[in-house]
């Protein structure tokens, strides 16, 4: 600590950058396998009948969703938090041994949690609630990890030099609070060893099993209030935090309207929490709740577009940067895909549209234009921007980055277009009937028709994965690329040919 000038300390950010890349590869690889399983069922037994238990679709699907959400995305959120947080609060983690310790503890406990999740999901241990599959011991571990992050987050805010909290910080705080509330309520569960069944027997099932405290319609309601808002506070809020920092910083442009960013923030907070009902249209949930879900989903376009347009306008007069820099391309396309999926979602939430869309592949298409085009692009862009600064080296290859951009964009387009066609075809075929009300098609008829589109989706996903591997390679090589001076890092990131 002698006389060295104070510097930001990126130790923890680097750790989470590493898991972002590794868990991204794992999660997307599993996604590609799933996609080909749907097109070619033989892939379910690709490692032989003996291992089919571990390689079949149903075992792998939660592994995919949880690896990309809680692995890739949350690692990305934390990598950027431990980077952006220090910078906009103008305080270094090196200034507090306690915060440094909490940061590292956060990372290592998280890693233990990840390992427990992977093993238990592969073993088929699950509560069978989507995105909340973990049994109670893991839930408790996750809460501990979350609280440690919270202590670090508010601790850093507590010792800041910058009085005003930059807009990104608001979004990180909202992520923390939102997920904390959602996760606790949805995972209320009772270990079966403490429960007694109707016949009076107790101590049923393995020690790690539990039953939800909710049942029936209530369970569905709480689950989709959680599920939808996990999208809100995992895939939207923290990613908006990223773009509000990284796009202005990389382009050297001030946010087009800071006031609009504040307004959109509160708009998003007000509206998002009410929209989850759109997952339960035409179910046993009270009718008014369904209508409320639809209407709030439509209103949600406003705050979403408020942020997205604000970002695009930030580039006003600077569009040549989009052509010149692949890094800016990732962010501008990310923002565009954000607008796109926040328009598509509300359309799907309209009751009459939902009557066709529900349970079809169109929903899966919607999910992935958001997560691939927006979440994935933004996290990769953030890591690209951070790499030269945390490693003090230029990005290894600009052309590799540009190639990756085009390959992945093609991948995303193939993914969502094929799922649109597949989904709408499915929806129409399921509903078609003759004049007496007899269904016109059996389920297998739809499967036959959809086969080519499933293959296209698989290819699109594979392209995205290939692009992600190029990203991983570029990051890896950056660690040994040409060192750069501090002054080169002001705004646009230095990149090698």
């Amino acid at each position, binding site marked *: 600590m002698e006389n060295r000038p104070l510097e930001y300390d990126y130790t923890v950010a680097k750790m989470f950058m590493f898991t972002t890349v590794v868990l991204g590869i794992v999660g997307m690889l599993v996604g590609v396998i799933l996609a080909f399983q749907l097109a070619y069922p033989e892939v379910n037994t690709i490692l032989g009948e003996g291992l089919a238990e571990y390689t079949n679709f149903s075992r792998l699907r939660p592994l995919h969703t949880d690896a990309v959400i809680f692995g890739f995305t949350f690692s990305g959120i934390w990598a950027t938090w431990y980077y952006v947080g220090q910078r906009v609060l103008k305080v270094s983690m090196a200034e507090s041994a306690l915060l440094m310790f909490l940061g590292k503890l956060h990372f290592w406990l998280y890693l233990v949690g990840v390992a427990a999740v992977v093993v238990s999901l592969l073993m088929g241990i699950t509560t069978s609630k989507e995105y909340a599959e973990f049994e109670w011991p893991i839930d408790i571990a996750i809460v501990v990890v979350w609280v440690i992050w919270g202590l670090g987050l508010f601790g850093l805010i507590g010792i800041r030099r910058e*009085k*005003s909290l930059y807009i990104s910080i608001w979004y990180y705080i909202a992520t923390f609070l939102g997920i904390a509330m959602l996760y606790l309520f949805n995972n209320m569960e009772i270990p079966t060893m403490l429960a007694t069944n109707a016949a009076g027997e107790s101590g049923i099932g393995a020690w790690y099993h539990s039953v939800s405290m909710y049942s029936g319609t209530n369970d569905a309601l709480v689950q989709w209030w959680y599920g939808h808002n996990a999208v809100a506070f995992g895939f939207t809020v923290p990613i908006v935090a990223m773009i509000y920092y990284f796009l202005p910083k990389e382009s*050297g442009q001030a946010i087009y309207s800071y006031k609009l960013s504040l307004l959109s923030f509160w*708009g998003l907070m007000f509206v998002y929490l009410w929209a989850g009902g759109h997952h339960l249209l035409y179910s046993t949930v009270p009718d008014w709740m369904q209508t409320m879900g639809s209407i709030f989903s439509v209103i949600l376009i406003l705050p979403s577009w408020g942020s997205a347009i604000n970002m695009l306008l930030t580039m006003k007069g600077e569009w040549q940067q989009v052509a010149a820099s692949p890094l800016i391309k990732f962010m501008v396309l990310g923002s565009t895909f954000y607008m796109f999926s926040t328009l598509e979602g509300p359309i799907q939430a309209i009751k009459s549209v939902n009557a066709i869309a529900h349970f079809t592949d169109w929903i899966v298409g919607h999910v992935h234009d958001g997560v691939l085009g927006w979440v994935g692009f933004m996290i990769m862009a953030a890591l690209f921007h951070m790499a030269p600064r945390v490693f003090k080296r230029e990005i290894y290859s600009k052309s590799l980055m540009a190639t990756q951009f085009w390959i992945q964009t093609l991948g995303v387009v193939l993914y969502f277009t094929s799922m649109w066609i597949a989904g709408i075809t499915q929806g129409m075929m399921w509903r078609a009937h003759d004049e007496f009300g007899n269904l016109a098609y059996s389920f297998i008829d739809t499967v036959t028709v959809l086969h080519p589109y499933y293959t296209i989706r698989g290819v699109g996903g594979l392209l995205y994965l290939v692009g992600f591997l190029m990203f991983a390679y570029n990051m890896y090589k950056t660690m040994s690329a040409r060192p750069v001076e501090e002054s080169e890092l002001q705004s646009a990131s230095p990149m090698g040919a």
Partner: protein
Amino acid sequence: MGIAEYQAYGYFGLTAFLVFALYSYIYHLYSTDKKDGGHDYENYSNIALNDDISDAPVSPISDDKEK
């Protein structure tokens, strides 16, 4: 009046309240912008642009730390 009407009125009221609150917020943002004692909101963008540890904070937490 049955439950459906209560719901409808409640729902209308809630939406109206949200609209009112958000418009008031817009008004608040614009009316306090740059006034004495108010905030220069657009200047806050510089928190990200000038974020080196040696840069002066845009609004320092206390005067004695100000450069």
